[in-house]
Structures are given as C-alpha cells and as structure tokens.
C-alpha cells in the first residue's frame, strides 16, 4: 500500500518481558486524510492493525499532557501534531528521552512526579483567609500566567541535557511550578525554602541552553523561572531577607 496519501510510520517498540528481542522499530503504512493528527494515526493503528501498540492519550486536544513523544526527532504532543505538516512521508515516533521505557511509547514518569512534588507545588498561606476571595490585581494574576499554563507533559524534562547527565537534577517543570507559586501574590512560603535548591542538583544545575523552552508545547518558559529564582536566591543571600 503506497500511494498519494500513504505515510510510513516507523514506531519504536519495546516490551521488557521480551528482553531478548530488544527495542526495534516497526513499520506501519497508513492512509492519511487532511487534518489527521499523529495521535489519531496511533489510535487507528492500535484499533485496526496492531492491538499490542502501547501509548498514552486522553484529551486529544493538547490540554491533559498525556501524549508527549519524539516525532521525527522533535518532542511534541502527538495529539496536536498534524501528519501533513511534514514534508517527508516517513514519520518516526519514539518515546520521551530521560525517562525509562515501560513499553513502546510509554515511559515511567515516576522521577518527573517525584521532582514536581519536591517543590511543594501548592499555595502556602499563613494568615487566615477572609470570607471572600483574596484580592489579586489583574497585573498580579498576569505575572503567573505562563507558569499556570503548564500541563505537566514532561516535554521539557525530556529535552533537558542536565536531566540527561544528572538524574538528581530537579528539572525545568519543577522550577516552573515553584515560580508559579512563589510569584503568586497570595503565596506566603518563606523565601528560605529556596535554600533547599541552592546547589548543583537544584537551581545551579541549569546550563541555560533553553532546550526546555524549545520543547514546551504550551509556551511556558521554564528558564525564565530558573533565572528569577536564582535572583531571589542571591537577594536572600545578600540581604538575608526572608520575604518575597
């Protein structure tokens, strides 16, 4: 089956229970009509050709963060990637790097979540809350906007060269989350919380090569958060002020 709209998908396959065979690429030829996304092709392959293929998906609309993978060498969400956007007719799909492979395109996200939890990813308040909302100006709300948009898809984590060489490095997503809370006008955590990350596995690990920004499908700029957090840390060291 080769013709006008037939694309060749080369998909990374690996099943740890069949260790002898090792990872390999399997080829599927699929007819693609305009508008079809990589995720829809994967679903079609699983439904119609090969039920053994494993990959994650849920929202199919680029909001849940399930389906990040490497598509023709670039990390992106399979559900928002149109097949027809590629000039070549061969599309190679691989699992996210920097995470262990569970099966085919499914990776073990445990380290990613562990790092996320380490930054205390929740609003911390000390003063009692009023009966109504805590006021926040439009300006203050805007400040956290880009970090709020993070869908925790792990694209940045997988693209990060520091994570690749240092598995104990916290990772771009965790810093983006920390910045989301520290710069929230309502959050009251002591700035000294940052001291935990005042080391090479923390804020000083980043090479600022911006790979995370490039990989993020949601226009979050984790490097911005790292730069901001470093500034706060330096201020804290210089002036010893434990206030934001």
């Amino acid at each position, binding site marked *: 089956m080769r013709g006008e709209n037939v694309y060749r998908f080369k998909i990374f396959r690996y099943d740890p229970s069949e260790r002898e065979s090792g990872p390999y690429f399997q080829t599927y030829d699929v007819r693609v009509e305009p508008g079809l996304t990589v995720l829809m092709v994967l679903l079609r392959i699983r*439904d119609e050709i090969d039920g053994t293929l494993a990959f994650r998906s849920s929202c199919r609309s680029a909001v849940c963060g*399930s389906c990040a993978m490497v598509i023709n060498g670039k990390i992106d969400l399979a559900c928002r990637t149109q097949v027809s956007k590629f000039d070549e007719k061969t599309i190679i799909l691989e699992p996210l790097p920097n995470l262990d492979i569970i099966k085919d395109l499914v990776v073990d996200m445990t380290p990613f979540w562990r790092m996320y939890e380490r930054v205390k990813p929740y609003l911390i308040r000390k003063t009692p809350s009023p009966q109504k909302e805590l006021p926040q100006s439009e300006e203050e709300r805007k400040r956290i906007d880009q970090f709020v948009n993070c869908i925790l898809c792990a694209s940045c984590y997988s693209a990060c060269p520091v994570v690749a060489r240092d598995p104990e490095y916290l990772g771009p997503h965790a810093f983006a989350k920390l910045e989301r809370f520290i710069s929230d006008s309502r959050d009251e955590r002591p700035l000294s919380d940052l001291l935990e990350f005042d080391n090479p596995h923390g804020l000083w690990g980043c090479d600022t090569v911006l790979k995370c920004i490039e990989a993020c499908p949601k226009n979050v700029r984790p490097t911005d958060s790292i730069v901001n957090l470093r500034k706060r840390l330096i201020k804290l060291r210089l002036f010893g002020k434990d206030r934001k």
Partner: protein
Amino acid sequence: MIEHEVIIVGGGLAGLRAAVGLCEKYDVGLISKVYPLRSHSVAAQGGINASLGNHPEGRDDSWEKHMFDTVKGSDYLADQHAVEIMCKDAPRAIYELEHWGCPFSRFPDGSIAQRPFGGAGFPRTCYSADLTGHVLLHTLFERAISKRLKVYPEWYVFALVSDGITCHGVIAFDLLTGEIVPCAAKAVLFATGGYGRVYYYSTNALINTGSGIGIAYRAGVPLKDMEFVQFHPTGLVGTNILMTEACRGEGGYLINRLGERFMEKYAPIAMELAPRDIVSRSIQTEIEEGRGFDHPHGKYVLLDLRHLGEKKIMERLPGIRSICLDFLGIDPVYEPIPVMPCQHYSMGGIDTNEKCETALRNFFAAGECACVSVHGANRLGGNSLLETVVFGKIASESISEYLCGNEVKPDRGLLLEEKKRLEKKIERLMNGEGEKASKIQVELSKTMSEYVGIFRTEEQLKFALTKIMELKERYKNVKVSSRRRAFNYELTGALELEFMLDVAHTIALGAYLRKESRGAHFRRDWEKRDDKNWLKHTVFKFNEDGEPEVSYKDVIITRFEPVERVY
C-alpha cells in the same frame, strides 16, 4: 489485595474534592485509570457558576436567581431541593478553591472575574481565561498532594463488589503489571465521569467511556434519566474539540451559509446565549434545511469571533485560538470557525440523592457519573464544574457520617470470588480468534450519534435498540489479539466496551419510552413537553436477564412550578 477505609474511583474534580475532604481523617485510596491530572475535567474551558455578584451588571445576583435559571434550564426536571443546595453552596465553593490557590481571572478591582453564559440571567460564570477546568483540576490535585493522598494511577476498576445490600470494594486492573487486584473498602465512591465516547461525535476525552456508570449498573445500582444527553452546539468539525460557550458569552455569532445570524429566528431575545439544547437544535435545523456547509467529517455552520478583535480573543479565549491554529490551521482573529453540534455531557447517571447516596448502602457517587439530579433535562454551562466540587464535598461528608455510625467489615471472600470471575473473563477474551472490540465500538457510537441524537423519532430509536442488541450479541465473540496483559489497552478497551453497550442501551431505551420533548430530549413525533404524564425521572435497573427494567420516580418541586420555557 489492597485495603483502605475509603476507596475513591476517579481522579477528576469530583473524586479529588471528595478525597481532600476525607484523607486527613480516614485511610483513603484513590484509583484512576489515568494519572489524575489527565482526567477529563482538565479540558473544561468556559467556567464555573456562582452568584458572587462581582460583575458590574450582576450585582443583584443571588443564589435564588441562580437556582431559578438552573431549574428553568433543566426544563423543570431537576430536583429542586438539590439545586437549592448546589446554588446556595456555590460562592463558598469558589472562595474555597480560590483560597487553595486557584488562579481565577480577575476584574480590575481584584475580585474574581465573571462572564455571561447561556441560559443565565446574570453574568455569573467565574473563569480563568478559557482554561477553567485546567486550573481547577491542578488546584485540587495540588491540595491532594499537600495532604499526601494515596493515589493508584493507571488502575482500571472493572467491578463493584456487593452482596446486594452493602458494597465490599472494587476489583481493579493494574495497567503496569497486568495484575487483577481486589480492593477492599468500608465505603466506595465513584467519581468516574461521563460516557461521551458512547457517541461518535463527542467533545469528550477519549477515556470517557462511562464504564463507571456501567459497572455500578451491573452491580445492581439503579441509573437515572439516561435519555437526557447534552449536545453542545459548537464542536470543531473533524476532531470535535469543544469551542467553549464562552465564545458566545464573549459575544461570538453563529452564521449560516447565507451569512445570516440565524439564532434570531429561534431565540430572538437570548440569541446565541439561549441554552444549549435550543442552540443545538437550531444549528441542526439550519443544516438539515440546507443552510449549512459541507465537510468530509460532517456538515457545519460558522462561529464568528472576528468582531471581538484580536485583543479580546487573545486575553479571554487564548486556548480557543491555539486549538484552531493547531488543529485546523485557522486563526479565529481573521477567520470564522467551522462548528457542529456534538455529544457533550451526560445529564443522566448513577441514581443518587442529594447526599450522594445510592441504593447500595456504602456506595456513593458524585460528579458527572452521578444523577442527583441538579441538571434535569438540560444542564446549563458552568453548572457541572460546580456540581463536581459541591457534591464532591458532600460525598466526603456523607461517607464520613456513614463511617462514624456503622461498623463495616468488607468480605474478602466475596472479593476473591469476583477476582476469579474476572480472571476467567480475561482469559476468555485473550484466547482464540474473534471480533475486535474497537470495531463494535465504532458501530455503536455511530448508531448513537445518528439515531439517538439531537432529534429523535420512534422509528429511529427502535432501530437503535435493535442494533444495540445485535452488538451486545456480537460482543460475546470479542477477542483481544494482544497476549501480554501489561499495558494492554486493547484489553482494557474490550472490557470497557461491555459497559458502554449497557450505557447505550439505557439511553436509547429511555428515549424510546419517553413520549414527549423536554430539554435535550427532543422527539419529532412528540414535540411538546407533557407535564401530566412525563414530569418524572426514569430509573433503570439491571434485572436478572441482564436487561434494563424501567420504573419512574417523582420530581421534587419546592419553589418553582413548571411553566413553559421561553428564551
């Protein structure tokens, strides 16, 4: 075997809200077939209703007005005492979420921003741009993390274990290992979401199979009002991704092929902001009468935002813009969006009362999988996010109350028996040659979209019922080609299909029996609402032959006598 005092199935808004309310006091385990943040709640766009009165034009808003809009929107099928509870509690629920960190959009005075939504007399929908579900789900998940909730992600529940009077736990399938794990509990809460994928054209996430509803039904728990299915007027052509009602709330127009703003014919006052059932029927009528456009993936009309201007679109509807760019390659700042009505919401579900209790003693349900009923025959936009957090909290209180007053001992033997049954079933599915589940699912969902859709007739519904029976028969011969259990989505798909068939069956049957038009249920052969005969809830019970047994139940009317619904 795992054991917890409380097991919650579902990591969406309803499940997480309940968990947050319980996990400091009780030993709670939350099971979800996807990591909680991947739940469908994350996709909600437009907003959540509460009569805060923050909007300059909404200062006079009150919970009574919110209640009235909800009851009227429901075409008087909602149980009014439950609507009252929800609308009264709404402001508290919003403030609570805000105090937990939810980043709502703000008005210049620093208060939570509110926008107009369909069917509402006041602008009372609180939002965060067009990513409201995302911020709410992340906030509740963050709260759950801060309380160290125990989560079992990527575990599928496939059975509710009951002795007919009390429930003893659930049976889950651990996707990672492929193991079947009995889970014993003193109380179980289902917060498993809606059944959108029973329809072919649906705005719902791919995981919304409605299996939770089917599992409860098979365990003997009655379902309610299944025939009421909401069709959202504006799903993107092709992928059916939702274009939020906020597009119209912010001032968007609906336009047909002749360039007319056709809503003036159907709802001259509310126009594009009439309730969803009315707007969906209007679009469908335009399309059927030849005033729509053609597309290989269905006929459509246009949603025009261009006159809102770039600034407003970028500020209030940034998610909509990026969806249009990513999925259609069009920019709504310059081009109108092609939209069609799609299945969107499940008004019906597991029959519960206002305390989230079901007919099974220690089994509770909340959120979209439950039918309290606060939405009646038609849900208003912004009310279902509200339902998840209000009733998620109520569920936690009811469970707490139940555990305080009752000594419960889950029956391990019963759980192990049920596990054995499931093992056998999986073995059967994985042995030999047969039909693929996915093929049956496509046929089922196409049947539902075509014959149990926006407009219904007796003939169509009869056809759908026959087809569903045929598919149920064929299901017996379904086989899974993939032999290894771990991360076998083909297997989980095949197991879920059985529940989808049951759910579809009750929807079609309820629609067939209900000889009137009310809210989202519109019968071409019975176009009028008939309060004399049909002001009642439909109740479905799984009987011994595996067929639905139907009965009816009174609607609770406290404040607002049914009158004709005009917009």
